[in-house]
């Protein structure tokens, strides 16, 4: 069983960001099943967690559903992260979520990045804003980033080939890897004190 977490930072309902996230999730699901894997998709809709995210910034701990969302991302074998473009970059809400995910959570995790915007003028946001963030988080980001402007949702179908290519790249990174091990629990197996004393 492979788990794919889909983090979507769209604010309106219905949201084109969520629409793109769903298409990426479906394509990844298909690609993984073709590779013989069972798949579970976990959706994290950041709009529902907006208050909890602000509370976390102020109190230092995640409340119920946010704690579950963070744990869901940590447990996932792959992550699809999709943001609307706000002021030439990812949205503040999107960044806040990745600010409160514990350091190390995304290290080596296969990640597919995608963004939506009103016009194609923002199409480099995936590469100039999102990629550096996920490089810092040491994620293993697939080569194809998917950007969709409003126009892409009508007219000639330009999105599907990109969605499928990115999803195949993500599935390729997952297949053949060991499933994500249960996240090490420092409460179950503490570092023995003699080791701490040695420094």
């Amino acid at each position, binding site marked *: 069983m492979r788990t794919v977490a889909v983090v979507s930072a769209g604010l309106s309902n219905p949201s084109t960001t969520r629409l793109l996230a769903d298409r990426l999730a479906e394509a990844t699901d298909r690609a993984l099943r073709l590779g013989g894997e069972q798949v579970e998709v976990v959706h994290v809709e950041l709009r529902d967690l907006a208050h909890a995210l602000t509370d976390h910034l*102020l109190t*230092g701990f995640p409340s119920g559903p946010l704690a579950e969302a963070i744990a869901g991302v940590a447990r996932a074998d792959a992550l699809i992260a999709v943001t609307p473009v706000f002021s030439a970059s990812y949205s503040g809400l999107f960044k806040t979520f990745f600010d409160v995910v514990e350091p190390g959570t995304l290290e080596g995790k296969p990640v597919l990045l995608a963004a939506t915007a009103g016009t194609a003028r923002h199409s480099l946001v995936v590469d100039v804003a999102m990629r550096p963030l996920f490089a810092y988080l040491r994620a293993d980001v697939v080569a194809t980033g998917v950007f969709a402007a409003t126009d892409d949702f009508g007219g000639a179908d330009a999105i599907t080939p990109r969605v499928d290519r990115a999803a195949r790249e993500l599935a390729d990174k997952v297949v053949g890897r060991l499933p994500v091990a249960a996240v090490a629990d*420092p409460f179950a197996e503490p570092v023995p*004190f003699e080791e*701490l*004393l040695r420094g």
Partner: protein
Amino acid sequence: MQFGIFTVGDVTLDPTTGRVPTEQERIKATVAIAEKAEEVGLDVFATGEHHNPPFISSNPTATLAFVAARTERIILSTATTLITTTDPVLIAEDYAKLQHLADGRVDLVMGRGNTGPVYPWFGKDIRQGLPLAVENYALLHRLWRETDVDWQGRFRTPLQGYTSSPRPLDDVPPFVWHGSIRSPEIAEQAAYYGDGFFANHIFWPASHTEQMVGLYRRRFEHYGHGSADQAIVGLGGQVFMRANSQDAVREFRPYFDNAPVYGHGPSLEDFMAQTPLTVGSPQQVIERTLGFREYVGDYQRQLFLMDHAGLPLKTVLEQLDILGEQVVPVLREEFAKLKPAHVPDAPTHQSLLESRRVAA
């Protein structure tokens, strides 16, 4: 079981009046609060340690020695002593001196501190916080138990033939608790030495405190200090009370909403649901506090944070009256009924002296 209060010594604007106390008012108020704590029958007064405005809690031993001179019975403690950035040689000297002045009414809670720049101000590297806590305490532990100490470590100048003075009162080192909000390494440290573990308990959900205390108890047993349920556990807590619970909520809400630590974040109601904060009637505080035992087991010390977020002195003293008259007597009786005979009380100077006599 011991009951008491702990303070962080914040100088905070009272959001209902717009008034900020002067530093001297806050320092004197801290002493008045400590004296009141003894008067209403509490067992412990603990002060935090900060080295930056808006706090007045630097130099905690001066405050505690002053309180010692004006009280007779209450145990003086810390919440917490910065074991990372304070020279362990100075801690050894200062708190041994305090023990003598206070006739043994002294213990300490070690902590790492949560203000980043304090590390560079005192010549330390915050990224070394845990190794500093481990090495400094290992040295402090020796200094209170050995003379002519030869020592070399990574973080301070080596010692040759150093004897900390004065020696601990009756050669009984102050009992030490280790405090932490979220580091399992500190629970491990407390367990290794057979010291107490103090869970902050006020900023994080109960489920987290349960994990930390559970780890400490298991490892306490692992290191051979007794069974897990004999480990020495302290908890923080935070309450505001009025006879009528709606009055308590109405009066405390502006302080909560503007509190320096969590203000402008979750609602009072959400925070009460997510953390052990209780705002309501004395009966509600009694019920909630008795419930802590269900997830940490039988424990030895309960401290409440009563004087922060700009609450005026008059209100804090009223709160202490309610705590001492209506809450703690009931808690004492109920906890005592529930506690099995093999679970020890928190060590005091007298009890440590007594166990040494028995062992000799």
